[in-house]
Structure formats: C-alpha cells, structure tokens
C-alpha cells in the first residue's frame, strides 16, 4: 500500500513541474498509453467469466424458446417424475437418445450427489487431519517435505486418477466389499477424493498457519496439552478457513469430470446404494456431447447441465472466498 502512495507522489510531482520539454511530454503520453493497455488487458479475466456463462447459456436457451425443444424437454419433464410406460408408476428416467426421449435430470443429480458425498466423507477427515498434522505437530523438516509432496498429488492429471480408480481401485474395492458391479459410486467417489484431498489440505493448512503464535503460547501456558491447543484453540480460530477448504473441495468434486466418467460405470440408476453404477452431471456432458446433433434439444439440454454446474460452483466459490477473507480479517485484526 505504501508503495502505491510513493509512486503516486512521484507521478504528481513530475506532473507539477512547469513547462515540460517536448520529449518529456511524449514520455508522459507513452506512460499513459502503457497504463491504458495494461488496464485493458486486466479486463480479460472478467470478460472470460462473462463470456463463459453467456455462451454456455446461449446454447441452452433454445430449451426455453423453441417449441420443439420446449415440448421434448420442458422443466416438468426434466425435474418431475414422468410416466415412462403405460400402466407403470411415474419415474425418473434419463434416456435422451430413444424414440421418445426421457430427459429427467434427477438420476444425474443423484449420481453427482452420491459420488460427491462419498468423496467428501473420505477427503474432509483426511485433508483436515493431515493439515492439522502439518501445521501443528510435524517437525519442521517433515513439514517442508510434506507440502511439496501433496502439491505433486495435486498435480496428477485427473485422467490419471480416473485410470487408477478404473484399473486398480475398482478391483480392490469389489473384492473387499463384494460389490456386484465393478464400477460404481463408491469407486468413483474414492477416486474423486484423491483429487480433492490436496485442495482441502492446502487451503486448510494455510488458514491453520495463519493463526497467530500467541494463541498457541497462551493455551500452552494455561496448561493445555499440544493436542488440546490444536483442537480447541487453533482449529476453532481457523474454522472459517477450514469451512472454505471443504466448500472448495465440494465445488471441485461436483465439477470433476474425467474420474467419474471413467470409474462410475455411467448408468443413470435411481437408487440409494453406493454399490450401484451412477451417471453424474459432468460425465453426462462429456459422454454425450460427442454424438449429439448441434442445435437439437438434446444438445441444448447438455448445455443447460453446463449452466447448472457453472452456477453451483460459482455460488460455492463465492462462499469459500468470503469465509477465507473472514478468517484472515479476524486473525490479523485481533493479533495486531
């Protein structure tokens, strides 16, 4: 912040010099042009985000405007149970490529929910406990080794994690739990956990280390053990940051595509069992976009799923960044 003030003073003082030479004026003009270009480029990030939602939504819009698409995929057909066969009770079915397309999104929501919940159940304890260990208990050397190793785990492409889940974990889990289908929500969820654990670990660890030393010293001086200090003082102080870590991990899990596409079996089944194959929102886009006719109702539905994924993750991200800001404000505000 100080630097800005210094620089601004520098600039205003130059401006205050009376009667500039032609060269100096040219130089000032050049500086202004450069500053203008830099500012203009900075709009790219905003533009990208706006263009993403505008162009994904644009392709989905036909769903609400064109009569053919509205008939084939109305909101009630997408979200309410439909009578699939005469004489059978209404059900949720995703079969977009058939004589009578059935486009209920509920099976996809259930698939996404199942894999996400499994991955969170695994990744949150492992990530948060691991972060607690790295921030509170690990010797310094070990900690400096642990962080880059987790960064390497974060650097594994998701297609490789999907491959590992498909080739190795699926067989191991099937043998251990005696599941009847090899690829299911459990395998995909645990594979997904591998992808989000580093996210949770990194953000949680950052907010734990942001807790001032004086908190720990005060707690220890009052006779608390190191564990009690970590669990009852440091962790609560960093709580919004930990929550942000979990929310970020959750957002990542909802949108992750390749792992689920490869390891979930991709059958849109409505059931409560984790041993059943599932089809997630993201994997549906990836699997079906390749064969769809551009401009058809099915094509618009896939973009509509994209809009939903965008909105979910957008909201989760805003929440996470609000909470991270809160923890920083709280800790730096009360410490200094």
């Amino acid at each position, binding site marked *: 912040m*100080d630097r800005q003030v210094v620089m601004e003073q520098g600039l205003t003082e130059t401006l205050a010099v009376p009667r500039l030479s032609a060269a100096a004026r040219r130089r000032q003009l050049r500086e202004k042009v450069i500053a203008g270009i830099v500012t203009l480029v900075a709009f*790219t990030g905003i533009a990208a985000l706006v263009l993403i939602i505008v162009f994904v939504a644009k392709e989905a819009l036909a769903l609400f405007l064109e009569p053919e698409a509205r008939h084939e995929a109305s909101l009630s057909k997408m979200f309410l149970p439909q009578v699939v066969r005469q004489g059978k009770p209404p059900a949720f079915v995703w079969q977009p490529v058939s004589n009578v397309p059935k486009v209920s999104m509920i099976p996809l929501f259930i698939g996404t929910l199942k894999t996400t919940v499994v991955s969170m159940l695994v990744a949150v304890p492992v990530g948060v406990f691991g972060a607690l260990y790295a921030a509170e208990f690990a010797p310094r050397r070990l900690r400096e080794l642990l962080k880059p190793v987790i960064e390497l785990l974060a650097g594994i492409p998701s297609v490789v994690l999907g*491959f590992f889940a*498909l080739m190795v974990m699926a067989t191991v889990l099937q043998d251990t739990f005696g599941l009847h289908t090899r690829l299911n929500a459990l395998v995909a969820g645990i594979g997904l956990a591998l992808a989000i654990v580093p996210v949770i670990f990194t953000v949680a660890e950052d907010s734990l280390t942001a807790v001032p030393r004086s908190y720990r010293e005060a707690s220890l001086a009052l006779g608390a053990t190191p564990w009690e200090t970590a669990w009852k003082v440091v962790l609560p102080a960093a709580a919004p940051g930990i929550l942000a870590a979990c929310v970020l991990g959750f957002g990542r899990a909802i949108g992750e595509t390749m792992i689920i596409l490869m390891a979930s079996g991709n059958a849109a089944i409505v059931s409560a069992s984790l041993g059943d194959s599932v089809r997630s929102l993201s994997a549906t886009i990836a699997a079906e976009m390749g064969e769809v006719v551009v401009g058809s109702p099915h094509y618009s539905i896939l973009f509509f799923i994209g809009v939903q994924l965008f909105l979910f993750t957008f909201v989760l991200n805003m929440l996470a960044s609000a909470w991270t800001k809160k923890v920083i404000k709280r800790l730096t505000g009360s410490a200094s």
Partner: protein
Amino acid sequence: MTYTTRRAVGLFLTTLTGLAAFLMVGMLALILLDVIANGASHVTWTFLSQPPSDGMMGGGIFPAIVGTAALTLLMTLAVMPVGVLTAVYLHEYASPGSRLAAWVRVAVVNLAGVPSIVFGLFGLGFFILFVGRGMDRVLGYEEMHWAQPGILWASLTLAVLTLPVVIVSTEEALRAVPLDHRTASLALGATQSQTLVRVVLPGALPGILTGAVLAISRGAGEVAPILFTGAAYFLPDLPSHLNSQFMHLGYHTYVLATQSPDVEATRPLLYATVLVLLLLTFALNLVAVIIRTRTRRKAAGAH
C-alpha cells in the same frame, strides 16, 4: 482427568492426524509404484517415436506427444502475456481501493473454480461456433474451415482455464520484489514502465516462470476441455495447421482405458502412456516447486 492421561489421549489423536498425512503420501506412492511397475518396461524408443497401429493395440504414442506439446506451446503463448499483464495491473498499476481491481480478483477466483467440462462447452460454444463461424463468414470459406474443432481452439480454451494460475503466481512474484528497488529506480528518473520492464519484471522472473510451468503442467493434463474442441481419437498425422485436430496423451489414456475392445491387450500400452504423461507433469511440477522454494528462501533472506 490427570495431565498424563490427557497427554496420552492427545498423543493418540496426534498419531491419527499423522496417519492422515501419510495416507495421502502413501496413495501418491501407490499410484506411482503401480504405474512404474506396469509401465516402465514398455516405454521404449519405438513406443515414443511410432504412431499407434493395429487398431490402437500396438505401436506407440508419437503423435500424442507432439500433439500435447504443440497444444501446450500454443496455450502458453496465449496465456502468458495476458496473465502477466493482468497481474502487473493488479499489483503495479491499480490504486489500492480500485473497484476494477477488486472485480478482476473476484473474476479470477471464480474462473479458477469453473469445472473443466464447462470450459469445454465454452470452447465449443464461443470459439468454434461463434468466433469460428464468424471467421468463416468474414474470410469467405464455403465449407467449414475454422468452425470445427482444432488445435487453436483447444489451446485457447486451455489458456482461459490456466489464466488464474498465471495471474496468481505472477502476483506473488511481484509481491516478492522489494519496494526499495522500485523507489530507487523511480528516484533515478526512470518512468513507471521503465521501472517495470527493467527492474520489477526481471526481479519477478523466477516467479513468473513458476506460473508458466504450473500452467503448462495443468494444461497438459486436462482432458475434459479438449474433448469437443479438437482432440482426435486416432490420427497418425501430426497437426500441421492451426485448425487441424490432434492426438493428446491424456485423451489417449482415456480412450485406451475405456474404449478398448481387448483390455488385456492394451493394458501395457495404457500403462506406458500414463507413465509418460505422469513423468511429464511431475517433471514440470518439480521444476516449479524448486524454483519457488528457492525464490521464497531468497525473499525471506532479503528482508
């Protein structure tokens, strides 16, 4: 409870957290060992230098390696100038209370969280169907020339995806350049842009390189965004034009793992492909980690 029992309980729980940490390391080791054990013997020169043959059941992955390299090169050329200049704006040009800077930051945070498959849809909807079609109309192509999946569109899609990575690491690098360097330069009569180009950017170079390397490693591994924007299932020819399709290591992995008619026969090829992809991303990540720890240590020593 006495202090001793409390301590014992604490020690037990501490061990649990240690186990959680080592579970992560253990999984990483397990993945690496599995891939190396099953793939190492198949990574030969022929494998690296030949196109796939016998209906993907034999041959090598040369076109996929070239495709991945060309894709990430184009992506880097697109993302670096924009990412670095945005970070320069945020850290050097924006005034402290700037509204625009706050908006840019919000956009960057959210861009980083957009699911990769949505980037794929964006690439299709914006680059191919909007920009590509527009270019075909303006340039007067009768049949589809730009309005089809190709390496340019795929690399630009990835450039948007990796933009936050570059911005965040560049900004961190700019923050590490001491304020004294800037004030000294300005005091000697240099303009702001001269200071930027001759003092600040050279000082921040290692950090900017880290950003580039991280972006490349991220871009090289992403598959979902290129599914509909240019990756080809099987294409022995190397990409020769900006609108040609290309093979890709990650996509090839996906294809071999899920669409093979004979899983056992493609297994060695699959493992070898994964090993090459992993080595590539790990080497890049390792370079980034090394540069970063070095500059951080240097920055800590300077203050």
